[in-house]
């Protein structure tokens, strides 16, 4: 009897903690702002962004070309209903004229915002570096000194354009070209902020690097651009969190994230986002994994009006691995069209997608995924599991699995299940004294537990708390 019994603290569901924090994310900060471009998008606005950033010509041209692509592409006809008035959005807002290296350097009201969101505290406790973006610009950045000494670069992407231009240009817009889709083009035209990370050969970063993206102003669009390069045998865990307060008008978050993981490298990218219900969250994320490299996406999608996001791993060389874990929670008025893409381009590559969605109060969750085996991907293996949990009759779940196989010698598996929260399960728990609400929260937490347990403790706690807030029907 050496083993001890552990009751996971994160499963201590109905705690007061959650209730007092209903509005934790839903608050607005009064800021002065240094510069706000006028509403709408056109060549002039895009030039203005280049001017303000004092960009090299290649980037200016890249933006203008991307704008043309954006304008020429129709709205996607699949996924969700995108009813955005592109001319009614602010594309660029500079909140402060310089980036802080310490929190003291950050304007008080913005610093207070991130304090409320718990970022400095997390930084002290368990992070190796932080980037905090407020509206269009990164307002704070840090990286542990020893990592800097080892040659790790963790900066905002604007700075990288100036200071690491050769390295950046090798990848920027190459993994996700502007013509990939309408929103990748939009991001390429108006992007601002985001993280640029380079992990040198053999360097393994023990603690996560985190970026936190906060939209604060009404009708503000956020278009950060992230590029991560993991060199041979290097390792990184990158975490992003995103929130915004609730406004009555719709807004847009449209990021592009490009990742390259070289031979034997390992990258884990965790997203825990809890957007307000008025945000369209249309994000393109793609990683290239080379020989024996591993790329993992852990994607927690809560909140937003509509999310369309399908993190992808292209396994380019033998032995590459791609894993995608996706959790989506759709509440009232929300549609999560989330999923994953695995593209096996080389022999003996292995891929796995695990997707879990929860729909409640009329919310709609869709799993949309692609598993593709290119010709020559001999011995490649791919497994897709998607489970949906529907909490009430008003809610909905759909599955759109696409499987494309160009090679004979592969193995591919797909399982999907949809369950309605069982009266039987509810009754079982209630017959042991749990209230209906406790019981359904427990079932939901159990449903996502296989994913949550993959998260570091702190994020597991955060994820459970967010789910609990959703279960209480309060979003913010």
């Amino acid at each position, binding site marked *: 009897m050496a083993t*001890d019994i*552990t009751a996971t603290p994160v499963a*201590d569901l109905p*705690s007061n903690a959650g209730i007092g924090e209903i509005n934790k994310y839903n608050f607005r900060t009064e800021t002065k702002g240094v510069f706000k471009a006028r509403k709408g998008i056109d060549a002039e606005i895009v030039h203005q962004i280049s001017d303000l950033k004092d960009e090299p010509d290649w980037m200016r041209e890249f933006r203008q070309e991307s704008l043309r692509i954006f304008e020429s592409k129709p709205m996607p006809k699949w996924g969700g209903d995108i009813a955005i008035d592109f001319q009614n959005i602010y594309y660029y807002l500079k909140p402060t004229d310089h980036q802080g290296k310490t929190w003291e350097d950050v304007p008080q009201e913005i610093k207070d915002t991130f304090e409320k969101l718990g970022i400095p505290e997390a930084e002290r406790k368990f992070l190796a570096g932080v980037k905090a973006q407020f509206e269009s610009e990164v307002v704070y950045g840090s990286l542990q000194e020893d990592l800097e000494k080892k040659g790790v670069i963790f900066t905002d992407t604007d700075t990288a354009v100036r200071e690491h231009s050769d390295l950046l240009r090798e990848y920027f817009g190459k993994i996700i070209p502007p013509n990939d889709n309408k929103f990748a083009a939009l991001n390429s035209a108006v992007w601002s902020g985001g993280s640029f990370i380079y992990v040198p050969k053999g360097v393994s970063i023990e603690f996560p690097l985190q970026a936190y993206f906060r939209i604060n102003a009404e009708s503000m669009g956020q278009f950060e651009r992230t590029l991560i390069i993991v060199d041979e045998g290097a390792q990184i865990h990158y975490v992003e969190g995103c929130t915004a307060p609730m406004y009555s008008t719709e807004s847009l978050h449209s990021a592009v994230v490009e990742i390259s993981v070289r031979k034997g490298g390992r990258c884990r990218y965790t997203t825990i986002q809890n957007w307000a219900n008025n945000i369209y969250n249309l994000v393109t994320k793609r990683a290239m994994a080379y020989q024996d490299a591993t790329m993992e996406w852990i994607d927690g999608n809560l909140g937003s009006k509509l999310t369309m996001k399908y993190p992808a791993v292209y396994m380019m060389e033998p032995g590459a691995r791609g894993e995608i874990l996706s959790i989506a929670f759709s509440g009232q008025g929300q549609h999560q069209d989330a999923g994953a893409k695995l593209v096996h381009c080389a022999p003996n590559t292995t891929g796995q997608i695990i997707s879990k969605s929860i729909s409640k109060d009329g919310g709609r969750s869709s799993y949309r995924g692609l598993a593709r085996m290119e010709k020559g991907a001999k011995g490649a293996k791919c497994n897709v599991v998607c489970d949906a949990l529907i909490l009430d009759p008003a809610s909905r779940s759909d599955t759109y699995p696409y499987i494309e196989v160009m090679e004979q010698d592969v193995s591919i598996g797909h399982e999907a299940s949809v369950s309605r929260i069982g009266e039987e399960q509810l009754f079982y728990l*209630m*017959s042991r004294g749990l209230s209906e609400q*406790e019981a359904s929260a427990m*079932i939901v937490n*159990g449903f996502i*537990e296989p994913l949550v347990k993959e998260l570091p403790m702190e994020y597991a706690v955060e994820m459970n708390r967010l789910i609990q807030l959703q279960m209480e029907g309060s979003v913010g």
Partner: protein
Amino acid sequence: MTDTLRIEDLHVAVEGKPILKGASLTINRGETHALMGPNGSGKSTLGMATMGHPHYEVTGGHVWLNDVDLLELDADERARSGVFMAFQRPMAIPGVKLADFLRHATTNVRNPDRQEGEELIPMREFRKELKSKMEHLQIDMEFARRYVNDGFSGGEMKRAEILQLAMLQPKFAVLDETDSGLDADAVRLASESIAEIGGDKMGLLIITHHDKLLEHNPPDFTHVMLGGRIVETGGIELAHELHERGYERIREEYPEAAAENREMAEASA
């Protein structure tokens, strides 16, 4: 004054189909009652309706716990007032660890007025108690970390039900074939455990087809159910008789109930 569970002229329908047609029995805390009867006679239905399963629609009668009609309460409130049922087919709750579930359950049942969000019993205290109860039931500690009934063998499920009984310490418990799916040793262990946990502390209603369980928990009363009615009540000797000779005599003596039982069985087949 001792606690009493009084089932009074209970009528229950499932999916609109009448199953229980007026069942009555009274259990005082400290007594052991055996509920016997052929398959499909309504034994589980009696337990389910008492516990408050939403599929079991009560169309008449009462279930009194002292002076409270349990039928007015939700299942969780019934549990908090001291009623328990070990299910014939317990539900799996994937992803929920048995220990976490039990800590919530134990907290709520011990503090019936607990509001959501209030503290759970302290982890340390809970663990200690759980550990000692599991050791006693010869259940491996690893078990507490497994997901509730998920992938459990039939025997494991039954043992988990007994563990819950031990932790929740109800006033009254319905044990629905808690000895089925167990091998001989496990049946003996389960029977002894139930005697120890329940003994004279609880009122037990034991549904069983075997005699081992009753050997260790000799019933003060034996009830025979047929066609949704309790047709006969006797002492321990009735249980012995049914074990030895089956339900032939009962069917002959109560031909109407026997016919109804056949009908029910055919309708559900």
